[in-house]
């Protein structure tokens, strides 16, 4: 007797439909799984057998063959367990075939017959072309985001069979009203003093510009960076779904309600490997930190301590908004449209915060600067020094402006960008700048003199112009760009101290 059950497996952040075919026939008792299962998937044999027996069902003392079709795709993880178990029960005629037609199953089974969630429930459900999908209760919320299916959940095989055959109703799905509220992100009001870094943060939020902060230890770079997500608008539905998909596949805990509405904030440690940052690794390619941060903020603290290869591999995703990961047998594309925020000490000794303060050896400084390739530093439209705040502001100073009131200006500025057809000004192409960021009278001469003084490069000019446009938007003026906007944009794009030290003399 043969049974076919619908399920799906994950490759990168997309699901691939898998038909689980179970054949039970006369012959020597045995159980084999074919069709490119990876190690956790092959181990389904032992889990499924124990789960069926502990659920009070019987194990066929016959020859059982499971084929995972299409056989050309590698099946990864334990998500096919449930489909294999149901297929076996149907093939052994313990469950009528009619009740599983047009039903997909996704989940891992425990030896006690419980059904457990697997990463990537959202993309897996999305890949299925059936009416109903059954998952573990823990996956039910995100599974509903796919929107095309009737979602059912069951906590154990025993409950599942009872609901399938109509002996008991399906358990209710968690309602959004029961969900705990979101935790509020850190507020900008906590930052005392430091007007320039605060302003740079606002500009970064409004224009989507990458931001590099350079300052001595303890000057509050991390504190500032953590407050960027609170300034960004909530994600629209498509972006939220894209980010949720990646988080689901990467096994990142989803917020209550399933949908990632708040821009993610990821802060990998500087010891992170290239695979952890970019993605890949293992049989099924996993998204890296840059993809988990998609539509949000990737914060690299101690930027100059990161591996050079890791930093250089950021350049292509920064340019294209996607990262292509290829291995010998398969390749995939991950979304990687993130806003980069870097923080670094001015130099290895950390004292180079002001000119003449650094005590680093020539050699140590050279090695430090070598990690920051010019092209990478160039990607940061906003580069500001952060100094330790004035003690008078830290103790007993007025709290700064709150995130909420800054966010209002950010939303208004982004609305102007939306009229230009982009999410934010950082995404405007150079060719579009002429049209969208015209210069006020007399400003062109000023730019020419900056180019002549070597204060700006031709490429830097385009980047400065984008930031100036954001500044004009934030001031609620919009184009044409006045001299003040360009001067401010130039002042917010300083050379990192380490490079300045290296080039001194």
């Amino acid at each position: 007797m043969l049974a076919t059950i619908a399920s799906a497996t994950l490759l990168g952040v997309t699901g691939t439909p898998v038909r689980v075919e179970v054949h039970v026939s006369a012959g020597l008792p045995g159980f084999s799984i074919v069709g490119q299962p990876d190690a956790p998937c092959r181990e389904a044999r032992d889990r499924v057998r124990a789960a069926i027996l502990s659920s009070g069902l019987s194990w066929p003392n016959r020859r059982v063959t499971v084929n995972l079709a299409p056989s050309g795709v590698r099946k990864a993880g334990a998500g096919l367990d449930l489909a294999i178990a149901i297929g076996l029960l149907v093939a052994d005629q313990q469950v009528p075939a009619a009740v599983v037609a047009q039903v997909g199953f996704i989940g891992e089974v425990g030896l006690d017959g419980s059904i457990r969630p697997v990463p990537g429930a959202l993309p897996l459900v999305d890949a299925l072309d059936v009416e109903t999908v059954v998952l573990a209760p823990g996956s039910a919320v995100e599974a509903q985001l796919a929107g095309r299916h009737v979602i059912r959940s069951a906590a154990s095989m025993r409950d599942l069979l009872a609901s399938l055959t109509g002996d008991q109703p399906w358990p209710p799905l968690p309602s959004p009203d029961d969900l705990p509220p979101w935790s509020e992100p850190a507020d900008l009001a906590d930052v005392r003093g430091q007007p320039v870094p605060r302003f740079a943060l606002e500009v970064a939020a409004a224009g989507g510009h990458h931001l590099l902060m350079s300052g001595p230890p303890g000057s509050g770079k991390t504190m500032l960076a953590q407050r960027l997500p609170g300034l960004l608008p909530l994600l629209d539905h498509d972006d939220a779904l894209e980010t949720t998909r990646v988080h689901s596949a990467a096994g990142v805990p989803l917020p209550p309600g399933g949908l990632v509405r708040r821009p993610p904030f990821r802060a990998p440690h500087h010891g992170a490997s290239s695979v952890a940052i970019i993605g890949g690794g293992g049989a099924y390619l996993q998204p890296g930190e840059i993809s988990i941060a998609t539509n949000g903020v990737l914060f690299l603290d101690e930027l100059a301590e990161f591996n050079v290869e890791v930093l250089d591999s950021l350049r292509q995703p920064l340019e294209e908004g996607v990262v292509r990961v290829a291995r010998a047998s398969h390749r995939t594309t991950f979304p990687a449209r993130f806003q980069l925020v870097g923080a670094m000490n001015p130099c290895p000794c950390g004292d180079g915060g002001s000119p003449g303060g650094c005590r680093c050896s020539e050699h140590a400084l050279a090695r430090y600067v070598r990690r920051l390739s010019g092209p990478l530093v160039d990607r940061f439209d906003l580069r500001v020094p952060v100094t330790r705040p004035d003690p008078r502001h830290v103790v007993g100073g007025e709290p700064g402006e709150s995130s909420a009131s800054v966010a209002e200006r950010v939303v208004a500025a982004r609305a102007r960008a939306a009229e230009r057809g982009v999410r934010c000004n950082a995404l405007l192409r150079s060719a579009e700048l002429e049209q969208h960021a015209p210069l006020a009278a007399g400003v062109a001469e000023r730019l020419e003199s900056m180019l002549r003084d070597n204060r700006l490069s031709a490429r830097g000019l385009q980047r400065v112009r984008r930031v100036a446009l954001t500044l004009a938007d934030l001031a609620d003026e919009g184009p044409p760009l006045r001299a003040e906007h360009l001067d401010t944009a130039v002042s917010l794009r300083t050379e990192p101290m380490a490079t300045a030290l290296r080039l001194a003399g």
Partner: protein
Amino acid sequence: MTSSDTELPPEAWVTALASLDGMGPSSLRALLAQHETADEAWRTVRRGGFSPPPSAVPGPPGRAERVVAAWATTAATFDVAGCWQRHVEAGIGIVLRGTASYPAAFVDDPLPPSILFHLGDPDVVVGTRVAIVGTRDCTRYGYDLAFEMARDLSTAGISVVSGLALGIDSAAHAGALDADLAPPIAVVGSGLDVVYPRRNGPLWRRVAARGVVWSEYPLGSPAVAWHFPSRNRLIAALADVVVVVESHGKGGALLTADDAEQRGRPVMAVPGPVHSPSSVGCNELLAQSPATAMARNATDVLVAIGLQSRSQRPSTERRPSPAPDDRVVLDALGWQPATLDHLLLRTGRSIPELASALVRLEHDGWVAPRGGWYERVAKPGG
């Protein structure tokens, strides 16, 4: 030894000796003092028969023996003639101690160099000389001061001696070359073909073209850390007065000042802001050592060495004066580095207003940005 080797001049033998790894100035001096001629000294080393003075080869017990053995091994196969030939072909002048061309400044030195290599004209070492030394990591204040002082001294016909390092050294040479009225003099700590730091190459060549670059080390010697203190003693010996422009609490410039004091050369220091880490050494010198005089400008130095400035360069301000609004920003900046954050608090202006003022001041040469900080520029030309 081939027959041609016996006809080699003493310079060739001493160059070969100096080329041996670990043969520092004091070992070489002790070795040559024990022998009549240089080729005799070479034969002793090749035999392994020379034990350097313990102070010249510091380290754990047994190191001296290993060094002597290594010298003997190297010397056995060393191409003395070829080594000398390379120096001649590269246009490197070689001066031995005790010869007529040996600079008078070193003759009575407590630690005279046994051999000197030079690029450029060695005969420019006449007349009054002032060493301008300081930290590599200088501020704009120090750079401007060193540049200006060197330029004004050179204008007064005084040769400026420095070490061709980054920071103050570079400023001193650049300033002297700017006036170009007295030949610049440099002493370096590496072979004359090893330009260190590399990006000072153009400056190095200009000093060699207009003046002279000295070194105690033969071609190919790397710039290793232990070369620099002995390089500093040569700078001190060459100068009639040593001016420290900016120095951290510990620094090579302070060693040069010590060397100068031991040789009875007057030491002067440029005072700096009390809180500036790169002026700690100078302020310390001024506060602690009664012999150290204050050098605020070239005139102070000229007075200290009893020379009247021969040509007073009238101070001409070619920069357009800043607009009244910008002048307020310039005054708020003062003479210590500040960030935009600091200036916002001091002036109470908005970020765009300040940014525009700073761009104008920078364009006219009143301020210079560096790593997100702004520094006031004393005079243009640096």
